[in-house]
């Protein structure tokens, strides 16, 4: 990682081409909603662009990822994702179609993960989608490694319960 020389602007297009697709996939995994996922990714890049002190060179991906995760919480203090009404209908129609076709176990697993409390969900997704270690998850989320273990443990127990109940 290198400190960005003063005055050197972030090349947003280059960063987008390097990181947007993995971020968008993460956002889709977290939210299940492609329209919201795109809004989140766009917002993450815009925030990076406007950052008073941008992250060091090489640290952009972590910055963007953390922003996307925070935005995914749908927390009122952070994110108001407002879909245009036409998009609402489209997304809902897609979801309805998909629900009919993909009511399989994998879908149930993903839905169970999305229904977890936000922090547990983050930990599960970073472990099993991004393949991060406890320590890496802790760093990505600003948590202690101990609390990552706790979140993962609780999430696993909750998932086992919920998925077992659906069988």
């Amino acid at each position, binding site marked *: 990682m290198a400190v960005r020389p003063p005055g050197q602007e972030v090349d*947003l*297009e280059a960063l*987008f081409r390097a990181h*947007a*697709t993995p*971020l*968008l*996939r*993460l956002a*889709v*995994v977290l939210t299940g*909603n*492609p329209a*919201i996922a*795109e*809004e989140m*990714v*766009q917002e993450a*890049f*815009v*925030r990076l*662009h406007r*950052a*008073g*002190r941008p*992250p060091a060179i090489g*640290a952009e991906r972590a*910055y963007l990822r*953390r*922003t996307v995760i*925070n*935005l995914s919480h*749908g*927390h*009122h*203090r*952070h*994110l*108001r*994702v*407002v879909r245009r009404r036409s998009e609402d209908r489209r997304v809902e129609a897609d979801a309805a179609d998909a629900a009919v076709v993909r009511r399989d*176990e*994998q879908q*149930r697993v*993903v839905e*169970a993960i999305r229904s977890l*409390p*936000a*922090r547990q969900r983050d930990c*599960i*997704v970073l472990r*099993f*989608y991004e393949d991060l270690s406890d320590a890496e998850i802790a760093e990505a*989320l600003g*948590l202690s490694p101990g609390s990552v273990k706790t979140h993962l443990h609780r999430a*696993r127990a909750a*998932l*086992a319960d919920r*998925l077992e109940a*659906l069988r």
Partner: protein
Amino acid sequence: MNEAPHTPASDDHLRRALHEEAKGVEASDELLHRTLAAAARPVARPPRRILAAAAVASVAVVAAVTLIRDDGDEKVDAVDDPTTTTTTAPAELGDALLALFPCEGAEVVQLSLFVDADGRAAVEASLAADDRTLDVTVAEPEAVGAALAGQPTDGVLPVAIGATFANPDDELAVRAEVADLPGVIATSTTDCATVPPDVVAERPNVIALVRDDGMLMVVDLASGESRELYHHGDPDDTSREGGPYYIDFAELSADGRWVYFSTCCEPAVGNTYRIAMSGGEPEIVAQGAYPRVSPDGRSLATSGCQFLYVTPVDGDGSAHLEVDECIAHLAWSPDGRQLAATTASGGTGPRQVLLFDWDGSRLTRAEQGKPDNPGSFVSWTPDGILNTVAGGPVDDDRALSQDASYQWILWVDEAGVVRQQAGHEASDRTPIDGLPPALAADW
């Protein structure tokens, strides 16, 4: 991770399901162009909500409610400056804040009714039927559209009618009467609750607020003097991963010795801190954000998205309740036995009002007494009637950082100038009776 491979929650299952979910997702050139265009747009200063400073001498302002804006896309870009209304010099800060809340002394209640065009005549007739109402204001129809986000308007925008009453009883009577009239969509009030006597005596005439640069301030309303208490971070500092971290909510303890505050925007649920009114270092006292002190001053309610917490102010042993929804604003009932909460909007289903019972040690979900209409902000009247305020998120790019509570938004800029608006755009300003002349001119 000792689950047998065949269980539905095994590592393999989780991994495969998540990767399957992401399959085929690609960032398009169209998204790139949208992103670049958004980044190139001039920065609109995000609307800063301020302050929830609970203690003003013998009254506490429980809710100041106004409107709301047109939610049409086409109007969005026409508004350049979401900040507003310069009103006072720094030395007059206390007076100006006090003047904003017209409830001290005589009880005055402001009622707003959101009605559709068909119901307007009936409501106006009802309000004008006798001498109970002092004034009726019909807002510009264009200013009201977003009050009904999510509700069909069939091209006919509703109107807002505001009425001022000399005392809460009159307001309640009229409210009960008009609530069932055809066309009434929502009602809300700006009123002043009486703080229980044992608390009143100890509460100083002080207000806590957060300045535009994130500085926690205390203002003595008697003298108008203000001072800086603590700075956690600047709202404009986006250099930290995940965004800025700053104080976004403040509330006084019942005895006025402490200021509770939460910070935006932690990952996870956030924390509530307290700092002595005399200064010093803050300490974490509760999980969750948006601290609200109970009417008896002994408990602190906080929201952590899918958690609701009640924590004793002078000890350990917080109670919590996990809910499916993401909770936003909280409000204690006057008797301290219930908590109303609104849910956050944003892709997790329609906004709702939730109600919880608190028996002093345990939180439970209450279904009885929950209002039917959705709201983005809740408050209670002094006699225990739950208000909700209609309102929806604004449909524009800046909605990504807006707050959804359509209460009066006040803030103080770095020069100590009080600013205020309702909603999130300058166009949200709606005439409200009872504002001091200096403010009314701008509304």
